[in-house]
């Protein structure tokens, strides 16, 4: 239990990485890192596919600086997301080489998107109390 709080619609309740949501509520976006082989996972997971070790992961804060690789403005949504259109979906890459698929903040306009613009992944509280994350412009300095 716990993961049902994640996302506008969360399809999953139970997972070993439910603490990810607790961290998100504390304002932190966390990855996991395998204590056996050192591999880092984002999105987080508790089983290491590299050394096949289970439940020997530590939670680790990410370097929260992202650049957009590609994006789309979605004018069309699955059931339950209709009110959100249009919304921008993007793939971004972090300074330490992690990747994320998420939405851009509604405050960002498509025209602003430039290849050198930097973003941070920030928790967002939804009206119904659920929580998610989105890319927001990173304040320089």
């Amino acid at each position: 239990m716990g993961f049902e709080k994640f996302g506008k619609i969360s399809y999953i309740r139970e997972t070993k990485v439910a603490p990810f949501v607790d961290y998100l509520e504390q304002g932190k976006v966390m990855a996991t890192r395998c204590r056996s082989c050192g591999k880092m996972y984002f999105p987080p997971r508790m089983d290491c596919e590299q050394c096949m070790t289970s439940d020997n992961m530590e939670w680790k804060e990410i370097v929260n600086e992202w650049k957009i690789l590609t994006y789309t403005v979605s004018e069309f949504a699955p059931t339950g997301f209709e009110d959100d259109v249009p919304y921008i979906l993007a793939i971004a890459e972090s300074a330490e080489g992690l990747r994320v698929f998420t939405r851009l903040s509604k405050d960002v306009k498509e025209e602003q998107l430039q290849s050198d613009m930097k973003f941070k992944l920030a928790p967002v509280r939804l009206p119904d109390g659920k929580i998610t994350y989105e890319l927001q412009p990173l304040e320089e300095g």
Partner: protein
Amino acid sequence: MSEVAVVGVGQTAFTRSCGVTIKELCFEAFKEALEDCNLYPKEIEASLICSAPEYDKQRSPAGAIVEYLGLNPQPTTYVENICASGTTGVRLAYSLIKSGLHDIVAVIGFQKMSELTSREAQERMGRGADIMWDSPFGLTMPAGYALYARMHMKTYGTTEEQMAEVKVKSSKYAVLNPKAMFQREVSLEEVLTSRVISSPLKFYDCSANADGASCVILASAEKARKITDTPVWIVGIGSASEPLSMANRTSFVGLNCAVEAARQAYKMAGIEPKDVDVAEVHDCFTIAEIMAYENLGFCNPGEGGKLVQEGQTYIDGDFPVNIDGGLLGKGHPIGATGGSQVRTIVMQLRGDAGRLQVKRAEIGLVHNIGGIGLYGNVLIFRR
């Protein structure tokens, strides 16, 4: 020497709404395939039933369908790789025959997408992405391919006009294919001005839901030669997968699963891309066909847009592709699509494609993708 051949093919018309049960729909395709090779149901030793299961109320549809087709007590298995289910069925049928377990196997693919309301179908679409990390953000099929399209444009300078050219070509051949759903030629202008679905993809960049069924009957060499004078041999098979979650993908300018499946298939067939005389590729979106050209080696990475713009993938080009309308022109009834692609290639290699016949077609290729580049199958055929 190849040892498994396609001996019979069949397909229903692909339509917006078929108005019959999935059993009745499959019967039509199966009947056509049996008549194509003069076999009776009792001669089919095993079957593979291919579709995406979320569209039907019937659980385990394989059981319902084989009963209706007269295929009891022979074994049957339901097989799913979303939009690539049909060619997965062919790959497994090949292995069932090559392994010696069976001599004649039928692959039946179907989808009745009109079974659901639009709202129900959109709900399924939301759950087609990684439900843990991607669906909560509202990812759709068009949005997924749009991410690839934008990256392709940014990296190689591919244009929206080049993507639109794919739809123009598709509509040109679809009107000559009586089983295609889309029976009207569209202009470049129409594609470019159609409403945006998920930028940069517009309405006419997207294939449409459809109802339909297809059937491919395969046989061992010994049986195939008895059944038909025109067996079409399977000489290459490749299959690969890609992480479901968008975050774990390494490329957005092409489909890794297609590149890997093509590598395996070419190696097994002992041919190179230039040896392919006619191909069916998975153009669920226009950008998908452009990436397919590149991933299959018909051109270098980044040159796909130019290839179609120069007419090289038309019926008289160097690489004739989707000379039956493709998914964009025929409609895309998920589980039936792969079998329809195989049917087209088989008809081309037999020389039975009529007004859509490609000259000197001896080697044909099918490229069938499941999901947003999640599963890739490449099959190579020889007459």
